[in-house]
């Protein structure tokens, strides 16, 4: 084993995560290697001063409000989904109604009818493509780094 192989054992020793055997292995190396002993000593000091740092806690009031505001966020999320789905349904219904009206309307010439229908079909294609793109990127983005 080279000195590099003892790095992980040093960490385990600092954090009290070694088995008795591992600890012995490390200790016998440290006894005979001044360089690793010095490095281990530095790490021990570093751990001591890092452990000394504690971060301020927010006031209790914030903890109490935490679930409440999360609940609101969940509710709003549901609201948006319901809103989105019903908006899409209404748009589809309105679209069909409009197509029906255009076809039935005797006042419109054939050319105008075809033009208006093409306009609606084009809009529908754009909308579907936009929604599909959003959904695709959302699902990719969300699990980009999430394993399992």
């Amino acid at each position: 084993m080279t000195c590099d192989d003892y790095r992980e054992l040093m960490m385990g020793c600092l954090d009290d995560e070694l088995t008795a055997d591992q600890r012995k292995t490390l200790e016998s190396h440290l006894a005979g290697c001044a360089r690793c002993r010095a490095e281990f000593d530095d790490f021990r000091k570093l751990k001591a001063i890092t452990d000394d740092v504690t971060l301020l806690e927010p006031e209790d009031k914030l903890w109490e409000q935490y679930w409440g505001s999360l609940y609101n966020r969940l509710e709003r999320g549901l609201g948006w989904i319901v809103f989105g789905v019903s908006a899409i349904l209404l748009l589809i219904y309105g679209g069909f109604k409009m197509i029906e009206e255009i076809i039935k309307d005797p006042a419109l010439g054939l050319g105008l009818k075809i033009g208006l229908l093409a306009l609606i079909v084009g809009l529908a294609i754009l909308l579907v493509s936009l929604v599909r793109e959003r959904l695709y990127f959302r699902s990719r983005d969300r699990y980009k780094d999430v394993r399992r």
Partner: protein
Amino acid sequence: MPICACDDEGQLLQQCRRGSREAFEPVVKRYTKDAYRIALGLVGSRDDAMELSQEAFYRAFVNIRHLKPHAKFFPWFYQILRNLCFSHLRKRRLRRTSGLPQFDGEELTAAGGDWFDPHMVVERTENKDRVWQSIARLSPKHREVIILRHFRDMSYEQMAEALFCNKGTVMSRLYHARKMLKEILENSKGGHAYDL
């Protein structure tokens, strides 16, 4: 650190899968403080930590059906939280350096430092401030293991679960993170960083 998959957690999560927001409340309450503190350690600002941890819980609930029935909640949730925090850091760095050519900032991310408010440290001393500011200057991945170990007091096993790696990798990441922290500290005080 209460990263237990306590007996009732599985049942609560099962109710969450059926859409019960009420069942999610005890789960959130169990991990609120851990989520907030980890986010705070990663991004350094209290407001952002509040916002990011809540967003992580929100996304966890919305995607709860992707959590396998017998899987523990916390390691899965932690992936969501850390992804949010890391992408927040990336955006912050991009905003700050927009227009400038960028190195792959993972290793030299001094830019993070200014966001870490020294007033967050309890019973401030010059030494503690310097340690906190040095942690802020670590790359996010190095800072992550320091935060989990020192500020959340997680065991190697819990860290390995949360980071989806084995204990050996945890130890070697800790070695590199601490070595880097030592160097930053030493440079911040011309040589003798921690003669305490």
